[in-house]
């Protein structure tokens, strides 16, 4: 781990993850790069199998043995991290990188009380003198009113929304520089989703961490993220300011995703034809080849390079024209 200097706050460069067994080998993520500033909210959006969750797990070193991570550079909170070094990973988990998982009830330990789980984390933090007062404050901070009583509760005694608040409190206990939230509200109702997202936003302002929000919900991404990256089959398709990417998308995949949503009242929806390609037999050229309505022969063989137009970056030979508003807007 090197000391913070002129490094960017968060940077992942040429990050690839492969899964291998005796017979075959498949990319789950290929040459993926992104950067983020301090306090920024980055949305990573994609369908299942796009590699978005794998990314989060790989940064914490939580992937299974069969996964091979190949990366040029990872910088988290201004510090260079070696993902292959166990001691680096141990330092990263908690104080540098916190994570909130999708299923709030099952990602807490069912055998221990909320208080014990908070104590475990807080006692590792040398700055904390009295874990009990700190734990009470944390629970209060995430909007759990009767924190005193909840410290003695087990996870199964709490609702999904409350468990997610406890997870947030656990992540905040180490004051992380970067927080990854992997589908933090997918298991929750819309009204509770709203409360949890607003809580995350308030905490981001208070603690000033960089938030990486992984989600399949385009609406959620557009409302809460500064910038967004669209992933498909392990590759980045488009990136830019969230509202720009989603309201004026250039890449046909982003556009197709948006058009498949039931955002209008009349007529039929437009599904994306075909299926996500098999990770073991990826197309040579653009990974969206075969499902794209703008494809030409070139797309089959030539991999598109990053193109930027001021606001967006996208990987496509035949992008949609600039600034064309699409999708029936509904107020």
């Amino acid at each position: 781990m090197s000391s913070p200097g002129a490094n960017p706050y968060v940077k992942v460069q040429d990050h690839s993850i492969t899964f291998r067994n005796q017979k075959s080998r498949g990319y789950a993520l290929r040459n993926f790069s992104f950067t983020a500033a301090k306090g920024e909210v980055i949305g990573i959006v994609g369908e299942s199998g796009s590699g978005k969750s794998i990314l989060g797990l790989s940064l914490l070193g939580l992937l299974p043995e069969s996964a091979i991570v190949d990366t040029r550079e990872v910088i988290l909170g201004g510090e260079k991290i070696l993902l292959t070094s166990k001691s680096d990973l141990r330092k990263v988990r908690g104080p540098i990188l916190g994570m909130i998982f999708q299923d709030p009830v099952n990602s807490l330990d069912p055998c221990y009380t909320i208080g014990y789980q908070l104590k475990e984390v807080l006692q590792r933090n040398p700055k904390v003198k009295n874990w009990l007062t700190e734990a009470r404050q944390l629970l209060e901070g995430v909007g759990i009113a009767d924190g005193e009583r909840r410290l003695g509760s087990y996870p199964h005694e709490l609702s999904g929304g409350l468990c997610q608040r406890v997870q947030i409190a656990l992540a905040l206990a180490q004051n992380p520089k970067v927080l990854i939230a992997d589908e933090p509200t997918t298991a929750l109702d819309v009204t509770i989703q709203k409360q949890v997202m607003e809580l995350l936003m308030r905490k981001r302002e208070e603690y000033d961490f960089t938030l990486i929000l992984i989600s399949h919900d385009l609406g959620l991404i557009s409302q809460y993220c500064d910038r967004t990256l669209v992933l498909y089959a392990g590759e980045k398709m488009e990136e830019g300011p969230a509202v720009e990417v989603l309201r004026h998308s250039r890449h046909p995949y982003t556009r197709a995703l948006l058009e498949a949503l039931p955002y209008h009242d009349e007529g039929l929806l437009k599904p994306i034809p075909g299926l996500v390609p098999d990770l073991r037999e990826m197309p040579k050229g653009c990974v969206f080849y075969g499902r794209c309505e703008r494809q030409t022969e070139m797309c089959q063989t030539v991999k598109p390079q990053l193109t930027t137009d001021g606001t967006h970056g996208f990987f496509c030979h035949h992008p949609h024209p600039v600034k064309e508003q699409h999708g029936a807007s509904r107020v």
Partner: protein
Amino acid sequence: MALLEFKGINKVFTNRRSLTEIQHLVALEKIHFSIEQGQTLGIVGESGSGKSTLAKLLMKLEQPSQGELLLEGRDIRKWSVKELSREVQMVFQNPLSSLNPRKTIRQVIEEPLIIEGQLKSADRRKIALDLMDRVFLRKEWESRYPHELSGGQRQRVAIARALALKPKILVCDEPVSALDVSVQAQVLNLLKELQAEYKWTMLFISHDLHVVRWLCSEVLVLYFGSIMEHGRTSEVFKNPQHPYTKALLQSVPSIHLDRVAQSGLRGEIPSPYSRPAGCVFQTRCVARLPVCTQPPPHLKSAHREWFCHLPPSNLPST
């Protein structure tokens, strides 16, 4: 006559804690509404609002504790399960766990016909293949097993199975929430097209308000076992009257709207064993009045009804 009538239905589950202590859980209270032939009714609400209990009553998997459920004017208690399954069929949320893994998809689709026992095997096969064709599954796939299909294909098998007996009512319990956006669109299109073709009546349970708005002609908003608002989808979504409906609509993130930080709701659904007296929504309502501890009045306007003490707002005078 309405095809389906819920008349003052209550459903209470009793839970014996110990020899002397019995807890009562009110899952549904005073549910009163009817559906006409050919309507599509979206049922929305948070978890614990009683959406699935409502579907179970209709499938006769649960009995109402009080009140009557009339199908074609006849009490559902008087229908045999076999009679009922000709009229009402269901599509479940998780297509993999609701299809028998040891049967090929043709066998899955044929099974309701086998139970009916009226057709020869060659005829059954023909019907099954026609149905597969209708839901855009290739006929060559008839001997595949559910695990060999993708999520969207499995859900189409479940729809074909529900269609086999040509039911009048189709109950869909979150049929697309386990699917990806691109696949979800295929299944939703299929449901809409088939509904237009067969004119069946549909109860569509969902937490996705965008989907309900797109698919359903009517919407029923449930909270904690009670009806909050009910009416024509376009009216309810454009101009919600009940504070709960408003809060629900505000909570849905959309790419075309800017973020509203205020949520219009406080706290969470209270414990099901401690039901508030009067309006059940009072504990979370931001517009609560002292009078809310009394049962809310039943208000009506054209094409809709709702239960709230607050005066109606922005309604065209009728």
